[in-house]
């Protein structure tokens, strides 16, 4: 039983001599309700992988199968907010597109903005927000999607540790409430250990799955717990070896 099944995915950007082999035979199965973290060096193909799963690009080879009839929701690495809409309208748009009635929409948007601590900033335009605030607005917009599979690309990268811890709790709550399948990209290995059921490590150029680490720490977890630190240390060690091998 898989929610997302990737089989031998390859992705080549460009043609001819300047072509880049971004992914080379990545196979990965994610079970329904599983929380998987992807880690890997900068430029190893994580964002590429998510965009393939989200159906925004076509793989050069291999096949992708996703649970249910919907496309997965994707939180991009950049905020990707619509500059012509207020923060509130940005968050509301997925609900509108899904046909949620106006009254319910209002309530859900208010709740989501509260979740990401942007309650006061609903009427601002994206350019009036700070970097971290934009990222949170994008998070709220993604959470407004009602899809069983959620893909998130470094969603907390621009946030301070405290805000991030709070949002870890929120995300975990939503994940378990909605029984979501989550594929989560992060550079923060502790974050990966804090959140996930499994950590998948990608090699760089070409991206390949080189190790998988199951995280069996019972929830609720704390990011500064020693269990989390132990898993993080193990993954870090693997990552270090992999990056070292590439001289980067």
């Amino acid at each position, binding site marked *: 039983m898989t929610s997302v099944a990737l089989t031998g995915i390859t992705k080549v950007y460009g043609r001819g001599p300047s072509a880049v082999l971004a992914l080379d035979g990545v196979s990965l199965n994610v079970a329904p309700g599983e929380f998987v973290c992807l880690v890997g060096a900068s430029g190893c193909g994580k964002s590429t992988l998510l*965009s393939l799963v*989200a159906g*925004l690009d076509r793989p050069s080879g291999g096949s992708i199968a996703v649970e249910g009839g919907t*496309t997965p*929701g*994707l939180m*991009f690495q*950049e905020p*990707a907010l*619509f*500059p*012509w*809409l207020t923060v509130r309208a940005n968050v509301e*748009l*997925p609900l*509108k*597109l*899904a046909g949620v009635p106006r009254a319910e929409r209002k309530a859900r948007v208010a709740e989501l903005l509260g979740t990401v601590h942007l309650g006061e900033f609903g009427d601002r*335009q*994206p*350019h*009036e927000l700070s970097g971290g605030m934009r990222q949170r607005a994008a998070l709220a*917009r993604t959470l*407004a*999607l009602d899809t069983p599979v959620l893909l998130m690309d470094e969603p907390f990268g621009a946030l301070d540790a405290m805000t991030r811890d709070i949002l870890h709790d929120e995300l975990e709550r939503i994940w378990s409430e909605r029984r979501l399948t989550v594929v989560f990209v992060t550079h923060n290995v502790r974050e990966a250990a804090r959140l996930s059921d499994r950590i998948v490590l990608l090699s760089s150029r070409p991206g390949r799955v080189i190790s998988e680490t199951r995280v069996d720490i019972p929830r609720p977890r704390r990011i500064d717990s020693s269990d989390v630190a132990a898993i993080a240390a193990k993954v870090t060690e693997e990552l270090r070896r992999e990056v070292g091998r590439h001289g980067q």
Partner: protein
Amino acid sequence: MANDVLTRDDSTISGLDALEIASKQKVTSRVGRLWSATWPKVAAIAIAIFIWQVVVWSGWKPPYSLPPPADVFSDLGRYVTEGAFWHGLATTLRRAAVGFAAAVAIGLAVGLAVARVRILRAAIGSMITALQTMPSIAWFPLAILLFQLSEQAIFFVVVLGAAPSIANGVIYGLDYIPPLLLRAGRNIGARGASLYRYVIVPAALPAIIAGLKQGWAFAWRSLMAGELLVVIATKTSIGAQLTYARELSEAERLMSIMIVILVVGLVVDAAFGAADRAVRRRWGVLDQAGA
């Protein structure tokens, strides 16, 4: 080292930069803002009229060739108090509005379709610019063939003048939508018509407004020519008056009509300008340059 320290307020900014930044100092009061928007215009117009007057004084050309400002303005005064002027203006503006509206509808539809459907683009994309360069008079025979001497013939010429320009504006706008926004739109569930409505059109709106502005200029110029196509009974028009003024060698009247055309142009530009500023404020690109 304290002497070496530089305070920000008089930093190493020079040339145009200084001008740009200096002119950005906020004027807070309402009256002050109105004044600072108005005086440069008034000054520009005053300078233009002054130069004109000086040239007239110099006796460079006889007054029947280059009439003095005073004569033109007194003619303008007479002109705008005639019923014919107001009827003509009303007719022309109505035609401009109808023709432009049709051109907008067609231009938007064609632009949206051509920009996004590859096969259409390959087939007729390059035709759009080619059509845009076709002078109005070339269409006159076809207009008469299709619509006889009716107002539709005028609209036909106006639409053929303006729609390609608008379509080109739309295509340009769509071409430069940041791919990330399109991807985001698709991902949050905007497909087909809703992708157009909620993502593509708003993202291209600035370019569309710019295209509409160019289209308006084409529409208006085509109309000035096209109004000669059908000089309908009972209906005088600015385009016809312009041509008659020229045919009767009435230099003053010709210049009066030019002033009227400029004023109409200014009013329309103000409308587009307001729309554009509203968009720029939202997008947060309003005050970056000297706007």
